């Protein structure tokens, strides 16, 4: 059955909240990535994403994909979850983009499908694009699933990101959930008072009105947050606690990440 505008938007909000809660649950598991210092995790997975984008050979990208699978299994991330939440979505999106490249990329013809010709270069570029995106998104998802947001922020601070940016990221993350919930409740309440189908113009007006009210609420919220910060004596100096300590295990992890990235870049050049 085709979902209406209210249902689709409410479901979108619920989906985002579920994803966020699922990530928090996975981050609490005892696995390989979870056992490493967040700074090592962040840096290591960033480097692997960089290695994926630097590699020019399909075999090397495939090797990195296999490495992502091993890390996922050792970090207690279910392969079925990755398949449904990442691989199928990426395949659908990137596949549609990559498919015409099989036919339109000039090169050595390998097969003819009616009036169009499949080229070797076209097949290679489509496979490389899909596999590269799948692998990079898998590494990013592993970071998201295995690291609580607060740890990501602290790790980013360790990477010398400005304090102001960290503060704003932390605040935004906190209020995203509040606003998602508020918007969801607004749509739910409208849905419960709706009989029949809304016309497209009515739906647009409603969306704009809801967004407008949400904007007003956001501004009021920012005023309250500002006053709360003032009451606590905020003078513009941000202090971020950094209670992370690197152990031998973390150094070993960092070394393995560095080695994997070095080998992939060297072999895939």
């Amino acid at each position, binding site marked *: 059955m085709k979902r209406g505008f209210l249902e689709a938007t409410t479901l979108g909000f619920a989906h985002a909240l579920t994803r966020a809660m699922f990530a928090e649950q996975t981050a609490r598991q005892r696995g390989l990535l979870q056992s490493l210092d967040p700074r090592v995790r962040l840096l290591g997975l960033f480097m692997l994403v960089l290695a994926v984008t630097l590699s020019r050979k399909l075999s090397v990208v495939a090797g990195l994909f296999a490495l992502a699978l091993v890390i996922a299994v050792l970090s207690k991330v279910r392969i079925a979850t990755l398949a449904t939440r990442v691989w199928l979505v990426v395949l659908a999106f990137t596949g549609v983009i990559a498919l015409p490249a099989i036919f339109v990329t000039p090169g050595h013809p390998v097969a003819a499908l009616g009036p169009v010709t499949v080229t070797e270069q076209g097949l290679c570029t489509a496979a490389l694009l899909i596999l590269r995106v799948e692998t990079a998104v898998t590494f990013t998802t592993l970071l998201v699933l295995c690291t609580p947001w607060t740890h990501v922020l602290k790790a980013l601070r360790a990477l010398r990101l400005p304090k102001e940016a960290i503060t704003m990221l932390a605040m935004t993350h906190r209020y995203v959930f509040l606003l998602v919930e508020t918007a969801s409740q607004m749509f739910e309440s409208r849905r419960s008072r709706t009989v029949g189908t809304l016309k497209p113009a009515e739906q647009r007006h409603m*969306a704009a009105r809801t967004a407008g009210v949400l904007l007003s609420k956001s501004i009021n919220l920012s005023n309250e947050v500002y006053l709360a910060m003032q009451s606590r004596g905020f003078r513009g100096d941000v202090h971020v606690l950094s209670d992370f300590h690197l152990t031998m295990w973390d150094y070993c992890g960092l070394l393995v990440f560095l080695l994997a990235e070095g080998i992939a870049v060297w072999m895939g050049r």
Partner: protein
Amino acid sequence: MHIPDGYLSPSTCAVLYTGAAAGWYSALKRLKRVLFNRVIPLISVFAAFSFVVMMFNLPLPGGTTGHALGVTISAIVLGPSGAILALSIAIAIQALFFGDGGISTLGANCFNMAIVGSLVAYASYRLIAAGAALTARRRVVAAAVAGYLAVNAAALLAAVEFGIQPVLFHDASGTPLYAPYRLSVAIPAMMIGHLTFAGLAEAVISAGLVAYLQVADPALLCGTSGVAASADGIAERPAARSLQTLWIAIAALMLVTPLGILAAGTAWGEWSPAELAKAPAIAQEVNSLQSVPSGLQRLSNLWTAPFPSYAPSFVRSRGFGYLLSAMFGVGFLLAVSLALRLLLQRHRRREYSA
């Protein structure tokens, strides 16, 4: 429009990270000059708001739906610096927390949507809404146009970034290593969707939000409408000042009109029958024409312009002729708009008295 990892080469990502970093630095520096303590929660909550607005499933004419970016309303309420930071934070959270958009392409996404999007939205909104009252309908139209332009500018940039990949990054056999389509394919493929749906979604939400704010909270529109937010509240700035800027800009543009003389040749497709007959290169270009088409010959004498080729017959200097033509053109347009305004006012008065 969120570019995932793997579509752009590392060098492209590095260049765009540098561009984005310059934008972030400049925005932070500008905001630090004003009341930064107040700005931190405002930008954070606005980033959260943009994030939520991006999730709205907007119904569009034609039965489809689209998602807005929220860049235009951020630029209108916060100004360009605030919008750059708010959108960048929203995009970073999408990438780092929800895995939407890449990490290596975070700089590119922020550059396209947050920086260029905000600047285009702000500039076009200010230009179109210049001098209009806070509750004027023109502001709603300006927001819609600004939203449409901002999204399409960001999409065009993304398309160009995709389109240069196969040219710059391919292996020895010619296999593209990243996004596989050249500019001739990437630009139309990207722009069709954005010119029709995504741009429209942003236009709808921006116009709707400005219309809502005009009724519910007009003070929020002050920041970018000739009313500047200051440390001790919102202080009124004369609206005539933005009009003054517009007049100065028009005068400057009129003064530089003689620059057109420097251009060699005639604009493509704007040839007179005499030029078309004289220049064999043009005839060859236009499908090997052998003679001037009879229709063109006949219709070219239908209307004789008072200032042909921007050079009135009574003026000897070509440069002065250009300047005079510009002044005449601007004056004529002003007279037409004034006449329309008077007509509309009279019509409204009649409706009111009826």
